[in-house]
């Protein structure tokens, strides 16, 4: 019989309210199904990997953030002192005015022939203008191509594959059933390799699963195999580099993930997504 232990985390801020103690949902289940022994039901253990491609560029600033940025730069200018470059510019201006009026000394003339601070500034600006950065905005075709890793540069993307579950093919995170003698983490690694091949490099963050989803098999499968259903344990991974060599895969944003997968599956996945 598995031991029931109190969790480490005792405070939750859920929708502004504070709970005095952490309530474990599984504790309730156990109490309600006290008549049914838990051990007799057999479940398939499945490891699933959520590979995340982190954003490549920063997101656009919101309205308030833009206003704040302008305000802060104004404040910075007002409270600053003049730099060496600014002083030099002022001095040059004075010598130029003196030259124009005609009451300039030999030293001023000499200085005027040298490069002024304004010249230096203009040259720097020209050099900066000549350098072209890569565009922050993608071609719309790249954003629409669901298999392209470079779509939606400022968003988090999740790898979805189409797998055969039972009789129908379903869009879900790459997963595979645990074999004898494997740990859940090893199953997760194997699931990833089976789904996307060897060239795909990602770091799985830790041995512990981050999410949980449970589903029951249809009745005929249940009776045939004697297994109640499958318990899916999600692992989190971060994409490093490489190509996914898979027939049906998609780099999905959160909205697309919500549309392509089942409601309760998405609900479980959403629990551990940080975006």
């Amino acid at each position, binding site marked *: 019989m*598995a031991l029931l*232990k109190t*969790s*480490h*985390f005792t405070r*939750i*801020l*859920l*929708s*502004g309210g504070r709970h005095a103690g952490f309530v*474990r*949902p*599984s504790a309730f289940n156990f109490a309600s199904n006290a008549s049914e022994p*838990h051990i007799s039901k057999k*479940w398939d*253990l499945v490891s699933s990997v959520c590979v995340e491609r*982190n*954003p*490549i*560029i*920063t997101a656009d600033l919101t309205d*308030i953030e833009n*206003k*704040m940025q302008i*305000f802060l730069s104004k404040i910075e200018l*007002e409270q*600053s*002192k*003049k*730099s060496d470059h600014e*002083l030099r510019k002022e001095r040059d201006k004075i010598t130029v005015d003196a030259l124009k009026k005609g009451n300039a000394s030999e030293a001023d003339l000499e200085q005027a022939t040298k490069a002024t601070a304004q010249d230096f500034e203009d040259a720097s600006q020209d050099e900066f203008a000549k350098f072209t*950065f*890569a*565009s*922050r905005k993608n071609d719309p075709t790249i954003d629409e191509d669901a298999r392209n890793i*470079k779509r939606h*540069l*400022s968003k988090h993307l999740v790898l979805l594959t189409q797998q055969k579950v039972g009789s129908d093919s379903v869009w879900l995170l790459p997963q595979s059933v645990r074999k004898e003698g494997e*740990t*859940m*983490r090893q199953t997760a690694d194997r699931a990833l390799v089976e789904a996307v091949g060897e060239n795909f490099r990602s*770091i*799985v*963050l*830790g*041995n*512990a*699963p*981050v*999410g*949980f989803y*449970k589903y029951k098999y249809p009745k005929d499968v249940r009776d045939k195999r004697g297994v109640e259903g499958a*318990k899916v*344990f*999600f692992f989190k991974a*971060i994409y490093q580099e490489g190509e996914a060599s898979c027939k049906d895969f998609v780099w999905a944003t959160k909205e697309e993930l919500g549309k392509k997968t089942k409601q309760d599956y998405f609900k*479980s996945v959403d*629990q*551990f997504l*940080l975006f």
Partner: protein
Amino acid sequence: MLSVALARLSLSVPKLAPSLTTQCRSIFIQSNPKLFRSTPCLMAEPLKKKKRIDPAVLRAREERKKKKIEKQIRRLEKNSRQLKPIDELEIPPAVYDTLKQRARKPTIISHEEMEERALLLKEWSRYKMKERMNDVQLLDKMILSQQKAMDELRLESEELYQEALAMDLNVMPFTIKGPVHTPPIVNYDSPDGEYTDITKDWFQPLFVKQ
């Protein structure tokens, strides 16, 4: 005059060899003999013979002196290269002397502008508070999700649970680079050229494998 001095000498001192008396000379012959008497330097060590020093040896000596001074300069420079703690930092004297020149004309902010700024700051604090609350909720949701997964795994099998609890030593040390403002340029020809950093990295692993 001279004979009187000599006579005096012969009276006070027993009759010495003529060399001693002749050696006593008065400095001021024309003036008053009561003044100085001097003898040449007697009973001193004879001066050493100045040997010719090999120019190579001389040069080596100079080199050594130069190197010593250079070493001291390097040591002082190394001190200046180390970063000072922030508490010890001061305004550089060149800037401090010209602070009056560097002052800007105080900008006159209208009443409307000041009101706008105050309102913007309030709006910003509200925005940031909401953002923070969202972040905290996200993190709590995620912790809850992991806790549930671990509880379920433990219900399934204690062995799998213990294996999931074990630390993954391959993950640490973990580095990740954040998003940039513009995406990397494809096939960028760096003006400094391409180079591979082959400096050896000696570091202590965070967790020692047992």
